[in-house]
């Protein structure tokens, strides 16, 4: 089981508690754009430092697909899962085969926050077929 570095734990605690001068919150985390976050699909493996190469073609909008509903917020350290309510779905109309390897979760402007490889990648999606990320198909965890 992975764990969070103690320094990272302190950053999170300080940003969300009255550790600033005069009892204000401590050093804040940088806010993400307050619009629906997106899941983008890649034909190469993302890494912690760089996004993968985004897939292209009819059926896929550059930048990824917006998440239309809120995920249940983390409580007592619980995981956050996505998507919620409905699966994310892309129908390949590119005329060729999609090879899907990884995803990136970004804010609406493309700032990445999380990434992951799809188990069993590359996932090959023939022209005319649909790739779906199931409800709760992606788990974000910090414990």
């Amino acid at each position, binding site marked *: 089981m992975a764990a969070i*570095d103690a*320094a*990272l734990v302190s*950053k*999170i605690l300080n940003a969300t508690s009255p550790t600033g001068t005069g009892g204000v919150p401590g050093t804040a*985390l*940088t806010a993400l754009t307050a619009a629906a976050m997106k899941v983008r699909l890649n034909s190469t493996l*993302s890494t*912690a*430092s760089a996004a993968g190469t985004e897939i292209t073609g009819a059926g896929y909008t550059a930048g990824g697909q917006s998440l239309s509903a809120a995920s249940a917020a983390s409580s007592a350290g619980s995981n956050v899962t996505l998507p919620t309510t409905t699966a994310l779905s892309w129908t390949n109309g590119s005329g060729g085969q999609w090879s899907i390897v990884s*995803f*990136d*979760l970004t804010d609406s402007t493309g*700032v*990445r*926050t*999380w*990434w*992951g*490889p*799809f*188990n*069993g*990648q590359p*996932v*090959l*999606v023939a022209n*005319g*077929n*649909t*790739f*779906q*990320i*199931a409800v*709760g*198909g*992606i*788990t*974000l*965890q910090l414990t």
Partner: protein
Amino acid sequence: MSLPLTEIGWQVVDPDGNVVESGPLTIAHMTAELVEQINPEGN
């Protein structure tokens, strides 16, 4: 591959709605950008 519905992370569906292939849940990792936000000094 056949998975319980609660363990499916992704699936490929043909135009008739048949599941061609599916895979398990995906665990995400923090990006360097997010780590930088949380820990800008790299401590």
